[in-house]
């Protein structure tokens, strides 16, 4: 369940550090973060393992009308962990991606029309204005922290994630838990979203890992040898 997670190891923040960071918080500029205006909740699963499903809280901003970028957290709370990133593009931009890139992206039509993707706290009518657009987009999600297996730290290599594409994929317990905590009903949303439509050309056959699975692997590459002239300062 996403309501609690394994604690991150470490000592509590020292007073001096906390004070300093309160100061930086007021003095410095945070424009890229201030551009984040929207909270979306959805579900991801690992591109190599549909049985491992994760509740994903997206905090999104528009780079322009056609491209959004999102920080993904494991909860909408103050102590949430930053677990991944999603990029969202409209269909016309998705089509410009190289064909070996397209499988890393997933379609949004099913999870939007199915009611599984929602904006917590926003009334359905307002939500649907935006979901009308999101329904036609494609997303690329990468997770860095496998909190679903209880990792207390972001271990291992990045994971490509996929989104719901057919009925019956989402675990019942996860679905019910989210519906309860956020006071939503996916079935009700499904009814209200009947008139939404997906990408104009249909879902591209290469999207959603072209129907197969994807796994990331680490490979060593040669780096030219460091010269033997150590420097202490630039």
């Amino acid at each position, binding site marked *: 369940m996403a309501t609690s997670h394994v604690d991150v190891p470490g000592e509590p923040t020292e007073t001096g550090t906390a004070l300093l960071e309160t100061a930086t918080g007021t*003095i410095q500029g945070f424009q890229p973060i201030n551009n984040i205006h929207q909270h979306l909740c959805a579900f991801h699963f690992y591109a190599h393992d549909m049985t491992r499903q994760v509740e994903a809280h997206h905090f999104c901003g528009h780079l322009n009308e056609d491209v959004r970028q999102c920080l993904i957290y494991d909860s909408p709370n103050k102590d949430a962990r930053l677990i991944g990133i999603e990029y969202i593009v409209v269909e016309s931009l998705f089509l410009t991606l190289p064909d070996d890139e397209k499988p890393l992206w997933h379609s949004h039509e099913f999870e939007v029309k199915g009611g599984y993707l929602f904006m917590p706290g926003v009334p359905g009518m307002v939500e649907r204005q935006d979901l009308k657009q999101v329904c036609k987009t494609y997303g690329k999600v990468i997770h860095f922290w496998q909190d679903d297996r209880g990792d207390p730290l972001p271990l291992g290599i990045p994971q490509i994630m996929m989104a719901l594409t057919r009925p019956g994929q989402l675990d019942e317990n996860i679905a019910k838990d989210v519906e309860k905590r956020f006071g939503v009903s996916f079935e009700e949303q499904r009814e209200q979203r009947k008139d939404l439509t997906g990408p104009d050309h249909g879902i591209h056959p290469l999207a959603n890992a072209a129907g197969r699975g994807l796994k990331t692997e680490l490979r060593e590459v040669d780096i030219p040898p460091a010269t033997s002239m150590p420097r202490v300062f630039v």
Partner: protein
Amino acid sequence: MHGIAHVSESTDYERTPSLTVWNTGKDDISLISIQKSFKEAPRYSCYHKKGQKKGYKGIHSVLYLNRSMASSDKKPGPTPAIGPGSTLPGKPTTLGSKLIESGAMMLQSMAPVRQMNLHACTFALYGHDLSRQIETHHFIQRINQDFLQCAVYDSDKPSARLIGVEYIVSDNIFETLPSEEQKLWHSHAYEIKTGLWTLPGMPELLQDPEHKSLTKTYGKFWCTWQVDRGDRLPLGAPSLMMSAQAVDIARVNPELVKRRDRKYGVSRGDAKESRVEMAESEWINPNADYWKQHGKGFAIDVVPVEMKSFGALI
């Protein structure tokens, strides 16, 4: 296994039309992608041998996937999604979208995002090619005295592109990690002591306490958008990034540093003096900055596998 037959293909992707025919392995169906010009996205059509046209909805999984496609260290194939200047494609944000965002802002709590209260500007090197160096803007949240999480952007303007995530741990935590994990991390002592890492807008002396604690930390930074390569959209697998070190091949290009310092009014003299006194960790774990001792960097490949599932994916 399906093959690819190129009927004709342009090498100058930007100017000439290209036509690619994908053999689906079913005799009577071919998937054809036609791109008339650079400005137009490819159109896909499915043709029966008898010339009857169908939409691509009728196709099952038609293409085989190459191993190591989209690897973090390989340049992607020709695409309008890479170009000089790496300008972002797409239309300007509409008023409608802005209104929706304003509505959302009033009704929703952005609690996790509000926790970031530190902005650092530094430089990072690609772990598979140390000569590629980028200026990065970290927006940082401290979870506890030993752990921080950072959203990394390519600038500090509202138009900044989200290019990755970095996690920072203290040396105490780092020592508890398995050695296979430690190889993915880099040390921070050098970049902090030399003033490559700075907190824009903060007087140098005020930066000291933060730097004292960060000098002994290690970071793990995955870059998801290779903007320096000209990628207009985030392409490929994430890249593992490394930090500047006191050896020639990992020294940040002085021009990059000068430009950054001018922009933020950083005086190199100030930074070096106040930070020289900082107790440097006497020992940096040799598993970190793995390339230094082992001459090996890391790349990420994306490989097709049979997904563990309880039903079809598409």
